């Protein structure tokens, strides 16, 4: 049987690109055709993509929905037409639509880094820290809040946290500027937490710009080659990140979709574990680096 699966991401970045690679691997393995779409974080574009795939008559749609509610109507339409919907990374508030939902819990992403920060604050900063966060509120408010709040929640366990600034900056070059501004405004800043990959890169570079290596420490999200490199750099800026496993997530999502389309049972909810990478565990970081290289 010739199955066609539509895989929809909502952004063009390394994370989703890796997910797409996982999807491709799974589709290839199963001999299915994969159609790739990008909704650009816009509900309207997502609708027109889904409708186009419905018109084309795909067997399954694998999607990271832009919004928990806004994405329901088109996916409901897809389900009505007998298309199997699998959500990953983010989902919708109507559980009856997706046959399966795979994610790393966004809050876990924040929590895991938060745990590392708690230990760091307790051991290195004497139980008190001035913290700034960089999110992506204006882009994806729900996810941004989950990560930032998850981080703060756990980090507080390491002592007293003074949140001195909460700003948005998710592109690296914006983050360089915003973090730079925050650093000058707060000479006694200890920690910057950035909730995505671009923000983390920018925050690290901003600390380097300001020559505050060893004074300000960065915690972040995502396990990209560049960030892993930063963890191994000797200037001691980036302390820890939490990597999702996008390749695995994409792979499993498509596998679920194909299984559902073939009438097999699939799990309703699958948690793809996240992976903390800390400067204190250099061996673990190097191992992850090898894994990354094996993907390319």
């Amino acid at each position, binding site marked *: 049987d010739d199955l066609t699966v539509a895989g929809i991401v909502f952004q063009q970045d390394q994370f989703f690109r890796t997910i797409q690679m996982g999807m491709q691997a799974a589709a290839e393995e199963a001999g299915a055709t994969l159609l790739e779409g990008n909704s650009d974080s*816009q509900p*309207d574009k997502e609708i027109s993509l889904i409708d*186009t795939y419905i018109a084309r008559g795909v067997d399954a749609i694998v999607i990271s929905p832009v919004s928990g*509610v806004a994405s329901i109507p088109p996916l409901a339409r897809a389900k009505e037409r007998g298309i199997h919907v699998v959500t990953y990374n983010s989902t919708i508030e109507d559980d009856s639509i997706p046959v399966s939902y795979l994610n790393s819990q966004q809050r876990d992403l924040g929590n895991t880094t938060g745990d590392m920060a708690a230990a760091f604050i307790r051991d290195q900063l004497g139980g008190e820290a001035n913290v700034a966060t960089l999110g992506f509120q204006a882009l994806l*408010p729900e996810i941004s809040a989950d990560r930032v709040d998850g981080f703060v929640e756990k980090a507080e366990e390491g002592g007293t946290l003074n949140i001195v600034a909460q700003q948005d900056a998710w592109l690296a070059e914006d983050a360089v500027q915003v973090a730079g501004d925050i650093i000058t405004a707060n000479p006694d800043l200890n920690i910057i937490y950035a909730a995505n990959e671009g923000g983390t890169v920018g925050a690290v570079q901003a600390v380097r710009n300001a020559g505050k290596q060893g004074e300000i420490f960065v915690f972040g999200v995502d396990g990209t080659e560049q960030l892993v490199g930063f963890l191994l750099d000797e200037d001691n800026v980036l302390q820890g990140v939490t990597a999702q496993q996008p390749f695995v997530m994409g792979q499993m999502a498509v596998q679920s979709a194909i299984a559902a389309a073939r009438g097999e049972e699939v799990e309703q909810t699958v948690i793809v574990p996240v992976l903390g990478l800390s400067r204190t565990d250099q061996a673990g970081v190097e191992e992850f680096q090898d894994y990354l290289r094996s993907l390319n």
Partner: protein
Amino acid sequence: MALAGLFRRYPMEIILVAMYLYLVFAAPGFATIDNQLNILRNITMMGIIAFGMTMVIISGEIDLSVGSGVAFSGCLTAWVTRELTPFLGPYPSIAIGAVAAMVALAAIGVFTGKLRQHFNMPTFITTLGLLTVLSGAANLITGGFPITSFPYEFSFLGSGFLFGIPFPVYIFVAVFGLVFFLMNYTSFGRSLYAVGGNLEAARLSGIDVWKTKTLALALTGVFTAIAGVLIASQILSGSASAARGWELTVISAVIIGGTSLFGGKGTIRGTLIGVLFLGVIVNGMTLLNVSEYWQLVVRGALIIGAVLMNHMLETQARR
């Protein structure tokens, strides 16, 4: 040759048909009725705005704020609905919200027109500023989270079918008809060409040039609000991230349709073709599973190519 003559008169139409024929054979699922209706529904929102934009551009102005205008009016409608439903029930609340959005965007159009009139503020810059302001306002209304105050049945407006045709297509056709009539059979419509072609001459002929421009801007505001409500209905919520970047796509459609950016020249029929052109490209490339990266390259190149074709023919004709 007859064909050459036909090509010279209807270049965009012929390119569109050629593309269409190609996709019928090459793109799986393209030729199905479902997919054709799908294309139609997908172009309605941008199309409605593009009809307004055509008037604005012909009058010699521009509106860069339509993208966040859509988001803003969807959010405003959702917010009003949430606040009023306990008192009035859902449908009156939605109606009030939609009207509020139209009034708000029409007022903003009037504001833009007044600044142009009294202080010679280019609409390019006013609406560029408004693009940012409205996006911020939409986020402030929603607090960043989509407002989900609509009853399920409200989705009929954006997603329902009437006699087998998607409901928003009727609205699209109605707006097209209205603008077509305005531009060809009313003095407002003809004044648009005059003020865009030669402002001073229009003024000396006793045309109220500012009323004309302002009306075009306000109408575009109303159309933008209609598109915003339709989008809100499609996604059953008011979302601040809807329609980001639409302004440039809408303007592309208008210009592909042969309207001159410098004002004074253009037709609403052309804009319809331009909107269809862009809609078919996006749909076709998705069905052909062209990679996102190549889609960007192809789309940009086709926009340049289509407008270039128009201009080459015009240059040739003038020789």
